[in-house]
């Protein structure tokens, strides 16, 4: 088993090396097949791993000691348990589909870059797997930074375009800020517990070792890390920009997997988080506000990918709300369902863009329903799923979170429902403007419109099926299901405690949210099936359209001041003060030379005069020697 787990991680890495080193040698087909097959293999192995975990519980595999010093050690251990096995399936599964999709989507690239693309993609899968499989926080951190790196590389994949590079840089740096928090949390753990393995950290006794402040601090720092990775306020602005990358990348990294790393991490260390009410509230508040903020922005965006990006941010907000209110299994549930339908949506968008020759503005689309039937259908399923219409998957996961939120605090629930409504609205606005009505693009675009090849549609179909039925894994008892998932996760998150609500309330809540969502949905379709909306008129509209001016704010409030500060250091402090002091000494010496050498006037009489005077001086010194000695003593022994 150890071998298999090892290979789950290793295969994508091999793929990376294969494509990375051989990028000038292989033909595109070889590259594509290799890359995809490696992921496929590790998917298969993940299934094996999953099954074994089902049978014989968690497996820990020790390979070597990453760091082993006299004072402490970090073993390189991988662990498969209920949680990580689930993520394994999602990552490798969705990963495989997206690789498959990419083979077609990226085929216009010439071979070396094609190889580069797949190498990055494999590397990403590798790091992601490391992230979820690691048995301690350091290994997780390695994966954590690894995925950040890959997202950087993939966003900046088209490196000649400088705006893309900026987006990539922004993503990486914002992630780095989060990572710093994560890192400090790790140090804190090491200082307090001397170990960072889950097996020892996430236990009652080590919890007992930690004071409340410790726990709060650690969890908050961890959450900072999660903010960076999972694009929560205030570190979310990178995700929309990250859409600069190729669409499959957005699907895989910025929708399905990487951005959910934060949720994984928090779920993983739920014991700590549950122990700190303060942190939980923070998470819940941040989560819900992110959800709403992103939703409002999404309503006004006209770039198909931007809309999806903001919807991702908003959905992530939901998941954090879930974490905040302690519905860990709900959050994970939503992660899984979201992975399916958001990947689906992105890929669908990709196929649209592909058909439109890299046109992303939905105002220039419309009426694609007939042109791209499969894409349209699958996209529609995705929209319904995300809108939370039963019995599609999104409904179950979202509802579980909302129910838990209500149990915690009705306000959360209320806001959540509003968010859900907005979600439904903007998704169907997107759907309607893109697929309904008649085509608004240029004639030759219209002429070239065509359904995407099989390699692209197959993933769409599979994902559509998945997002349609994935809800099945978490059907609540209420509906006669037995909620397989939460049972699955018991060893990780303990018994799910949603029994707080009476069945009637639950039904009521469900009804309300669904009703609201559906109405919003219908309004959107009705409003946008004829025409797209033009420039925003109302102030609020402008405000949303410009993303609350957050980017501008950051730029003005943080980036520019820091830049000026750096400039001040470089041009003023360094040049004039510090180096000035050094050069000043040299100048001083030369000045002194110029002065002292005037003593040497060349007049012999003057010399003798000076000599006589110095004799007198010597005598005076000699007379007052005691006083002088005392003075010297003071001077030397003061310090």
């Amino acid at each position, binding site marked *: 088993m150890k071998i298999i787990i090892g290979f789950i991680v290793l295969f994508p890495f091999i793929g990376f090396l294969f494509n990375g080193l051989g990028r000038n040698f292989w033909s595109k087909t070889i590259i594509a097949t290799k890359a995809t097959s490696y992921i496929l293999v590790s998917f298969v192995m993940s299934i094996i791993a999953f099954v074994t975990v089902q049978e014989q519980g968690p497996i820990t595999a020790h390979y070597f000691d990453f760091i082993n010093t006299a004072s402490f050690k970090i073993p390189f251990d991988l662990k498969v348990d209920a949680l990580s096995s689930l993520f394994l399936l999602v990552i490798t599964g969705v990963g495989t589909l997206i690789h498959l999709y990419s083979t077609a989507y990226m085929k216009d690239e010439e071979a070396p870059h094609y190889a580069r693309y797949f190498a990055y993609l494999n590397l990403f899968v590798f790091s992601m797997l490391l992230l979820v499989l690691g048995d301690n926080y350091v290994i997780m951190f390695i994966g954590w930074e690894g995925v950040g790196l890959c997202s950087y590389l993939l966003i900046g994949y088209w490196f000649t375009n400088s705006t893309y590079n900026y987006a990539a840089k922004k993503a990486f740096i914002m992630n780095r800020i989060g990572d710093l928090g994560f890192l400090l949390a790790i140090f804190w753990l090491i200082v307090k517990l001397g170990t960072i393995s889950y097996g020892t950290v996430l236990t009652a006794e080590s919890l007992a070792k930690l004071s409340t402040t410790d726990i709060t601090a650690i969890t908050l720092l961890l959450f900072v890390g999660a903010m960076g990775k999972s694009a929560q306020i205030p570190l979310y602005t990178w995700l929309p920009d990250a859409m600069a990358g190729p669409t499959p990348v957005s699907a895989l990294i910025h929708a399905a997997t990487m951005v959910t790393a934060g949720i994984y991490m928090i779920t993983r260390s739920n014991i700590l988080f549950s122990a700190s009410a303060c942190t939980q509230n923070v998470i819940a508040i941040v989560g819900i506000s992110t959800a709403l903020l992103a939703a409002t922005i999404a309503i006004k965006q006209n770039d198909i990918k931007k809309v999806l990006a903001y919807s991702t941010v908003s959905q992530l907000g939901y998941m954090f709300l879930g974490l905040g209110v302690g519905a860990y299994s709900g959050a994970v549930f939503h992660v899984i369902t979201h992975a399916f339908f958001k990947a689906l949506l992105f890929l669908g968008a990709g196929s649209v863009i592909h058909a439109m020759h890299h046109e992303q503005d939905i105002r220039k689309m419309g009426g694609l329903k007939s042109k791209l039937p499969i894409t349209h259908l699958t996209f529609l399923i995705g929209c319904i799923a995300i809108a939370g219409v039963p019995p599609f998957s999104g409904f179950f996961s979202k509802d579980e979170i909302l129910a838990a939120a209500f149990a915690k605090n009705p306000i959360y629930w209320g806001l959540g429902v509003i968010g859900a409504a907005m979600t439904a609205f903007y998704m169907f606005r997107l759907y309607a403007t893109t697929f309904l009505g008649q085509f608004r693009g240029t004639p030759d675009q219209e002429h070239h419109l065509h359904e995407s090849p099989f390699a692209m549609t197959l993933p769409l179909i599979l994902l559509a099926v998945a997002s349609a039925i994935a809800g099945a894994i978490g059907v609540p008892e209420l509906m006669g299901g037995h909620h397989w998932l939460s049972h699955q996760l018991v060893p990780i998150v303990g018994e799910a405690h949603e029994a707080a609500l009476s069945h009637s309330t639950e039904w009521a809540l469900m009804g309300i949210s669904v009703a609201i969502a559906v109405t919003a949905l219908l309004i959107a379709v009705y409003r946008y099936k004829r025409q797209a909306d033009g420039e925003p008129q109302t102030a609020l509209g402008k405000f949303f359209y410009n993303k609350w001016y957050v980017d501008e704010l950051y730029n003005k409030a943080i980036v520019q001041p820091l830049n000026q500060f750096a400039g001040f250091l470089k041009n003023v402090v360094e040049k004039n003060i510090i180096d000035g002091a050094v050069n000043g000494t040299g100048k001083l010496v030369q000045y002194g030379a110029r002065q002292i050498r005037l003593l040497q006037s060349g007049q012999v*009489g003057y010399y003798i*005069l000076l000599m*006589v*005077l110095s*004799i*007198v001086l010597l*005598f*005076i010194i000699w007379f007052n020697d005691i006083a002088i000695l005392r003075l010297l003593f003071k001077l030397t022994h003061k310090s």
Partner: protein
Amino acid sequence: MSTLEILFYALSAFAVISAIMVLVSKNPIHSVLWLILVFFAISGHYILLNAQFLAIVNIIVYAGAIMVLFLFVIMLMNVKVDNEPQKKLLIKFIGVLSGGSLLTLLIAVVKQTTQLQGKQVLMKDGTIGLIHPLGKALFSDYVLPFEISSVLFLSAMVGAVIIGKK
């Protein structure tokens, strides 16, 4: 007040005054002559101290040889009375000031030295100043310095030759 004291004071006053005259007299020739007088006064003191040999040597070597040499040189250069440029008054003042301060410092030292309190100088008695004991000492105990000083003379001679030869 014994004759000795009178003589002492007289000679001292004479010496000091003529020494000052050496400084103030514009004409170098006069300076030389005043200096000779100083030497005479000092020789007088030697005699008071019954150091007759030194008194004679002082007259012969200094007043006789050295000063005459000076005189020759001055005449050879025939420096005019008026053409010796004077230093600025300030410089002179400073010079006098520092000389004076040196004097005061040294006198202060001497006055404070208890060691010398009440020590008397033996006037006119004591035979060490006479030629006989001096000669004995010079050629017994001090023969080595005496010989070595010949080296000094040789070098001075050679030097004079090097410098003087055209």
